[in-house]
C-alpha cells in the first residue's frame, strides 16, 4: 500500500515541528527516515499511525484519506523504539492483543499467533513475559505483534536502538527478510546511518522538520546534495576543508593545497567553498598529495584511523588498513583522491 504525506504539517502548541512536508513511500517499499535527534522523525511516524493528528495537510494510505481516522481504524503495525511490549502479558498474549481487541475468538487468535510466532522464530518462548526475554527476542515479539493484524503499513521507530552491536547486526537482516517476505510497505525511523543504509530501499534524510534529500543508500553516499547529508553518512565521518576558487581549483589560501574542480562545478573565481573529503579518500593512494602531521592515531582492529593536521590548521581524517609504521607526530604526505571529493558552496549546498 502506498503512503502519501501530502503537504503535511504538525505543531505542538506553538512549536512547529514539521511544515509542509510531502513524502511518498511506494507500495512494498522500505523507507528509512534518518536525521538528527529532534528533527521530527518520530512525530512523522506517529502521525502516520494516527497517534498524533496532523495540524495541516493530508495522509493517504493507497488512495484512502486517513487523516482523521483514529489509530484503531488505520491498520498499521508499529514497532516502537522500546518495543512497548505489555509487561504483564506473556508473549502469546502480547502478540494476540491486536486480535483480542478485535474480538476474535480465542482459538483463532491462538492459531494466528502460532503462525506468526513461527515466522519470527520465537515459537519456544510463548509462555514467557517480556522481562524474561533478551532484547532481540523482545524485538521479534514486537514485530510479531505489529504483523499479526496483517497491517497495510509497518512503522519501525528506532527498533534497534537498544541492542548491542552483535544483536543489531542480526536483527537488521531479520527485519528486512520479514518485510520482504510479507511485501508490506514500511517506514524505518533511525538515527543510525549504517542501519538506514543497510536495510532500506530508499533513505529520506530529515533536518529540522524538512526532508533534505531522498534517495537510495548508494546515491545518498555517493551523491549527497548538501554538506549536512555528506556529514551525516559515513563512518568515520567526512572532514571538510574551507577554501576559495582559484583558477578552476579549490585552494586554501596560504597553503599549497590545490584540488582541481570538475567542470560541472561552475564556481566563479574567489567564491568561498567547502571541500568534503571522506577518510577513505585521503590515503597514500590518492592523487593530490597533501603534507601534514599526524595528531591522533588509533587502531580499530583491521583498520587504523588517523587525524592529520595540515599546514595552517585544517584537519583531514584518514582510514587505512592496519599498519604500524605511523605514529602520532609523524609527518606524512598522503593524498586526496580527487574523484572522491565533494564540493559545496559556503552554505553547504553541493555544487
Amino acid at each position, binding site marked *: 500500500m502506498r503512503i502519501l504525506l501530502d503537504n503535511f504539517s504538525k505543531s505542538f502548541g506553538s512549536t512547529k515541528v514539521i511544515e509542509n512536508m510531502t513524502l511518498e513511500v511506494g507500495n512494498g517499499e522500505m523507507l528509512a527516515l534518518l536525521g538528527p535527534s529532534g528533527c521530527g522523525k518520530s512525530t512523522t511516524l506517529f502521525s502516520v499511525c494516527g497517534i498524533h493528528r496532523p495540524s495541516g495537510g493530508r495522509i493517504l494510505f493507497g488512495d484512502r484519506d486517513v487523516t482523521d481516522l483514529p489509530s*484503531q481504524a488505520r491498520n498499521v503495525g508499529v514497532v516502537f523504539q522500546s518495543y512497548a511490549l505489555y509487561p504483564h502479558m506473556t508473549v502469546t498474549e502480547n502478540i494476540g492483543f491486536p486480535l483480542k481487541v*478485535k474480538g476474535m475468538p480465542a482459538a483463532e487468535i491462538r492459531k494466528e499467533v502460532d503462525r506468526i510466532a513461527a515466522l519470527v522464530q520465537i515459537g519456544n518462548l510463548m509462555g514467557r513475559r517480556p522481562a524474561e526475554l533478551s532484547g532481540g527476542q523482545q524485538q521479534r515479539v514486537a514485530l510479531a505483534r505489529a504483523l499479526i493484524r496483517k497491517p497495510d503499513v509497518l512503522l519501525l521507530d528506532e527498533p534497534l536502538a537498544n541492542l548491542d552491536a552483535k544483536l543489531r547486526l542480526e536483527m537488521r537482516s531479520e527485519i528486512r527478510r520479514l518485510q520482504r517476505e510479507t511485501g508490506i510497505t514500511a517506514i524505518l525511523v533511525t538515527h543510525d546511518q549504517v542501519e538506514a543504509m543497510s536495510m532500506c530501499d530508499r533513505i529520506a534524510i530529515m533536518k529540522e522538520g524538512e526532508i533534505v534529500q531522498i534517495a537510495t543508500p548508494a546515491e545518498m553516499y555517493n551523491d549527497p546534495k548538501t554538506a549536512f547529508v555528506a556529514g551525516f553518512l559515513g563512518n568515520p565521518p567526512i572532514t571538510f576543508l574551507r577554501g576559495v576558487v582559484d583558477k578552476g581549483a579549490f585552494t586554501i589560501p596560504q597553503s599549497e593545497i590545490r584540488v582541481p574542480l570538475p567542470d560541472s562545478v561552475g564556481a566563479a573565481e574567489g567564491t568561498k567553498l567547502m571541500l568534503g573529503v571522506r577518510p577513505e579518500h585521503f590515503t597514500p593512494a590518492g592523487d593530490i598529495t597533501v603534507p601534514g602531521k599526524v595528531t591522533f592515531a588509533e587502531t580499530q582492529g583491521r583498520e587504523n584511523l588517523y587525524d592529520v593536521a595540515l599546514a595552517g590548521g585544517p584537519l583531514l581524517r584518514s582510514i587505512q588498513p592496519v599498519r604500524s609504521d605511523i605514529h602520532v607526530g609523524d609527518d606524512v604526505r598522503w593524498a586526496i583522491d580527487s574523484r572522491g571529493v565533494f564540493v559545496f558552496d559556503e552554505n553547504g549546498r553541493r555544487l
Partner: protein
Amino acid sequence: MKSSRTLGLVMIAPAAIMIILFFLMPVVLTAVFSMTSMTTATGISGGVYQIAPNSLIALKSALPDIAAEMAEPRYTIDEAGLKAVEGLGLTPGIAAELRAKHAGEVFTARRDVERMIKDLADRPSTRDVKQISEQFNRSVLNTRFDSKEQLFSALDSLGFKLTAEQKETVAKATYTGWVWTTDNISRMTTSPDMARVLLNTVLYVALVLMLFNVGYALLLAIWTHYMPPTPASIFRGIWLLPRITPVVIYVMLWKWLAWDTGFISILIGKFGYPPKNYLLDNAYNAWFFVVLINGFIGASMGMLVFSSAMKAIPKSQFYASEVDGASRWQQIRYIILPQMRWPILFVTCYQTLSLLASFNEILLATNGGPGNATEVWALSAYHTALRNYAGNLEYGLGAAMALVLVVIGVTLSLLYLRVFNYGTLVAKPLIED
C-alpha cells in the same frame, strides 16, 4: 567499617530516642493501662487509702461492726490534743481556756468543735481554728493515707484490733486508686455496644476504602490520565483540597452543605421541601456523609499514587495498544488496570491502617451519632478515655480499646511487609568502609 557504623548510630539516635519516647513508651504504657481500672476517679498516678463514708458502704457488708465504728467521726478534747495545741505556738490563752472549759468534751462533727473553738475568748483566725481542731481529731475518717502501713498504724493507735485478713479487706475497700484487672477485656467482649462499634468500624473502613480510597481514586487517576496536562493538574488540585484543608474547616464545610440551614436544605427548599439536617437525619444519611467526608480526603492519596503509577507506564504502551486497535475501555481494562496491581495493593494496605486509626472527621462531623450509628472503634476509644459529657474518663478501658487497634495494626502491617517482600527493601551498602 567502624566509621560508617558509628556515624550511622549517631545519626539514627535522635529518631530512635523520639520513637522510643513517644511511640514505644506510650505503647507499653497503654498495654499496662489496659490491665487497670483507671478512671478519672482513681486518678492516673495511683491512689491513697481513705476511710470515707462512701468507701465504708462497701465495707459494711464485709465487716459491719468495724465499719460502723470507723464511720464515727470524733473530736475529743484530750490531754494529747491539748499538748499538741500548746506546741502550735498560738496565743497561750487558747490552750489554757480549752483545758479549763472543755477538757473531756467529745464532738461528732467538725463544725461543732470548730464553733466551740471560735467561741473562745481569744478567737483564733480561721486558719488557726482548722489547725486546732485537727489536733483533737480522733478518727481516721476522711484522712488520706499514702500507704497501707500508715493506715494500719493509724487504725492501731485508735484501738482497732484487726486481723491480717480484715486489714486486707479494709485496705481494699478504702483504696482510692486503680487496681489491676482484666475487666476491660471482659467488658469489651461482652458489651453489645462494643460489637456494634466493631461492626461500624469494619463497615467504615471497607466502605471508604473500596468506594473512595481505591475505587474513586482510581477513577480520578484514570480520568485525569486522559486529559491534557493543564485540566488534569487543576482537577488534581481540586481533589487535593480536602486533604490539605485543616480538618476542622473541612468538616465545617460539610456541615454548611448538609445542615438544616445548609445549602442543600436551602436549595431544595426552593422547591418546597422542608429543610432537614441531612447529615444527621438518620443512620443512612450519617453513614453516607461520613463515607463521603472521609472518602473525599482519602481519594487524593490514591489519586496521586495511581496517577504517578500510570505516568510510569511507558507512553509507548498506550500508543502501541491504540495502534493495536484498543478502545479506551479496552486500554483501561487490559493495559492500565493489570499494571495497577501493586499500587492498588499498596494503597489498600496503607489506607486500611490509616482508616482504622482515624476518627477526627467523624468526631467533628457526627460525633458518632445519631444514636452511636457512626461510632467507630478509634472514636469510641477516644470518647471512653478522653472526652465525654459526664467527664467520666475511663483511661483503662480506653487503653484496652486502643490496644486492640494496635494489635490489629501491627498484624496488618506485618502482613503488609510480607506482601511487599520486605527483604528487597533493605539493600546492602555498596561502599564498604
